[in-house]
């Protein structure tokens, strides 16, 4: 037994079992409801009822394997990977624009080995890693506009590339994550203020430049105006939730997924959960996400390494706020956008990247545990 080995063991503690169980729980519940919500659609497409479940499970397995890998590599290796990840995601974002496949009027997918892949999901991770890297190095020069300009340009570039894929909501979401990291890094309030003012006209232009966005906005403000058109989904989701009541109709016994509620297995899966598991089910899932976030923020706040702190913060924020945005959309509290519910919504890229992020977060938890025990 060498002393070196003991230090290694102490520094690289086993990952946070609490966080791990929450992740496994969310994934398990997610797959269960995915099956319940997707089988009617699978049958409609003349596929086996477990068609979507299997697809999702395969991607989740791949993501889990990736997560295991990321969980066990040293942080220094991860830091070195940042450049490669950023470059790859930028490349993919450009490729998708040139050679991507159009689905539902948006060019967001690349076909790799017969499977479609959505680069904008990877971009989320790339952006977080990039900002973590930059801010951990520029810790003391955050007051100058010059030093801020690089990260700012990158956030806008990622966002613009995503926007060009006609993925307005993810583009906005990237800016949101960027802002969160800027905020936590200590960027002055006046910069935020200026940035906010500067972006308002842009946002307005972007929203009103596409007919479907305006329609969605109108549908959000008044779903009953066009109940057969854009407002339809919002109305049906709300009906599903209301019919769920407190206890729900029982898992698997929902009716709205049977063809009434479009996108029941992807963006609007939370409505199916509400219908089948009731408010109690909704509450449990929100609490699980809250525990996940609490654990994630705790891990990141305890990091002494700034890179780890920003990465942990960014990942937790990304997953939590995707979930919150999705829930807000489903409940009709914000206009309909295409933000998936992490762990739940059908989407290979989404589940994979979510699990990869969890792998990194678990990795961070391994090194923090020890540091907490060290007298600082």
């Amino acid at each position, binding site marked *: 037994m060498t002393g070196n080995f003991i230090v290694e063991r102490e520094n690289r503690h086993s990952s946070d079992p609490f966080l791990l169980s929450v992740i496994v729980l969310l994934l398990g519940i997610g797959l269960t409801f995915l099956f319940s919500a997707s089988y009617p659609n699978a049958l*409609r*497409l*003349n596929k086996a009822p477990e068609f979507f479940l299997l697809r999702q499970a395969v991607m989740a397995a791949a993501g889990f394997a990736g997560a295991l890998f990321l969980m066990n590599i040293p942080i220094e290796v991860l830091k070195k990977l940042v450049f490669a990840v950023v470059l790859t995601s930028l490349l993919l974002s450009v490729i998708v624009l040139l050679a991507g496949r159009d689905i*539902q*009027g948006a060019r967001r997918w690349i076909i790799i080995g017969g499977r479609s892949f959505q680069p904008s999901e990877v971009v989320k991770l790339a952006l977080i890693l990039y900002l973590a890297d930059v801010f951990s190095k520029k*810790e*003391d020069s*955050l007051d100058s506009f010059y030093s801020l300009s690089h990260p700012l340009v990158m956030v806008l570039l990622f966002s613009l590339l995503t926007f060009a894929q006609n993925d307005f909501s993810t583009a906005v979401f990237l800016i949101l994550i960027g802002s*969160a990291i800027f*905020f*936590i890094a*200590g960027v002055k309030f006046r910069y935020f203020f200026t940035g906010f003012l500067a972006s308002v006209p842009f946002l307005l232009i972007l929203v009103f430049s596409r*007919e*479907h966005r305006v*329609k969605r906005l109108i549908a959000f403000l008044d*779903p*009953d105006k066009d*109940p*057969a*058109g*854009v407002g*339809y*989904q919002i*109305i049906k989701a*709300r*009906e599903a*939730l*209301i*019919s*769920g*009541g*407190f206890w729900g109709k029982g898992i698997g016994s929902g009716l709205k997924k049977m*063809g*009434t509620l*479009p*996108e029941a297995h992807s963006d609007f899966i939370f409505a199916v959960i*509400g219908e089948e598991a*009731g*408010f109690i089910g*909704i*509450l449990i899932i*929100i609490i699980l*996400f*809250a525990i996940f*976030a609490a654990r994630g*923020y705790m891990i990141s*706040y305890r990091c002494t390494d700034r890179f780890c702190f920003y990465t942990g913060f960014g990942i937790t924020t990304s997953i*939590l706020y995707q979930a*919150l945005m999705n*829930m*807000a959309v489903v*409940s*009709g*509290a914000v206009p309909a956008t295409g933000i998936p519910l992490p762990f739940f919504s059908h989407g290979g890229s989404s589940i994979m990247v979510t699990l990869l992020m969890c792998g990194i977060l678990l990795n961070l938890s391994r090194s923090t545990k020890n540091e907490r025990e060290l007298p600082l």
Partner: protein
Amino acid sequence: MKSSTLELRKKIFLIGTVLIIVLIIIRYMSLMLFSPAGGDDSVTHKPVVERGPILDRNGRILAIQTRLYSVTAWIPSIKDVGKTASIISEVLEIDKNQLIQDISSRSRFMYIKRKISNSDAENLRGYIDKGDLPGIGLEPEYGRSYPEKELASHLIGYTGTDNTGLEGIEYTYNSILSPPSTQSIGNSRDIYGNQVFLTIDINIQNFAHQAALEAWEKYNPDSVMMIAAEARTGDILAYVSIPEVDLNNFSASQAGDRINRPVANAYEPGSVFKIFSIASFLQLGGIDEQSEFYCNGFFEINTEGTNPVKIKCLGNHGAVTPETILKYSCNAGAAYASLTVSDESFYRMLKLFDFGERTGVLLPGETVGLLREDRLWSIRSKPTISFGQEISVSAMQIVKAASVFANEGVMLQPHIVSKVVEHDGKVVDKSVREPIRQVISPETASSVLHMMTTVADADGGTGRRAAVDGITMAVKTGTAQKLDKQTGKYSENEFISSCLAVFPAEDPQIIVYNVIENPKKVSYYGGVIAAPLVGDLSDKIVSYLGIPRTGDMVINHPGKITIKQKPPLTLEDKVPDFTGMSKRELLPLLKDNRVKVLITGDGWVRNQNPPPGTDVVDGLNIRLELE
């Protein structure tokens, strides 16, 4: 960097996040647990309401809920727009290119066609099940079917795509047929509307409809109206207005065909109106049954200085009495009779008949007609109104007003709905005879009714063609010149022919009224074309309802069989024969203190001990075996 600032920011961020989570929980809580039952306008779900049927007075279905399918499209799921469109356009027989355009112009959800036929739905279902139509769905929707098609179409009305009534009873009884839901959303879905029973009798409606259609063919008029009513209750038995619409396909009809003429059209009634003016003059005491006027072919009054009023009569009737005024429809006679009363009193009488007022029958779009106030009358007004000009009425107003002659001077509210019944059979509303007011005295009513019987006399009565075998008909015909809207004068070649009948005159039960607007063939005289129609329909109604005709062998049968109740069983001094008695019949026996009764079994008495004829003594045991 100032670590205190960073700590503060961490805290702000955490607090903000917690706040958002709490807000989302509250949002879901309010949505899922505290959604008010329909009060919140953000909840748009309409529970499935089964719209109640409309039936005739005997329960024959006139309108009923159907379940049809609508074709929906979730556009993001459509893979091949061209293929999808070609399959659908072929099945539904719609334009393919238009469909492709429609699908491309929408981004999410759309209805391709609502309420398709069941066979089309089955066809499409086949394609959907095969997986040929991704994104296309069939959504059940409730529609309305009218098994009798155009029969009584204006009375029944129709519903729109969302199954709310747009016309007729469907409109006025909309909230009764499909009650607005007050139940909470989502759970309780079975809401059944009430059944509305009309007063019409589908058979009489059919007779009237056929008669009207024949007139339509024969005289090529602009419209034919035919109303039959129960004289003593005000219930409308038949309600025909031609042109009419097939209610199952009302959208294909022309707007003009959808006009509910018997309540919506105001026209000058012509000579039929004389019965109301003669009744008024009699009631006001201006004339009596013996009053005599002289018709030399004209009605003339010479007023000092102003233009003399001169109105031509249709004939040279000589001396006329109220009776012959009606019988020969003498305009001059009616006009002279009008001079016996003042403008004001005549106007008030006409108001008592509810002319110039809606009849109160529950149909949309009713006209009030036109009855000018007496202060606006000219010197010509009173005489011309007395024979039915310068006043406009609806057919329903005439039928309503005519009810006075059958009810000893009392006018009745006409009804079109006989009862409203809940889906479980509970009667919630039932129409009853609803007297409005005593308009004329019983004597005046019977007097005018008697005069009207002479109109049907074979010796020159204008209504002789309305005569019915073995029935005393009280009739009045009318031929009014239509007002030419362009010139404002009476048209020389457009007429409104009408005929009213109340029968049997001794015991009025039925009122029939027929109006033929602008007949273009054969004739335009009410007595020639409307009267036979009324006669035909009346004849059929008489047979159908079994109204006795004179000369018929009348078997006076009360129509019910009375079973004589046995006197309650009492014990005399001998034991009677109990055989065949029920337990209930044996009950009084138990009251008799002298005997003890022992009953075994159920049913009727088969054996008894002691046998009949045994003396009854105190303490006698009577055993009865029932089977």
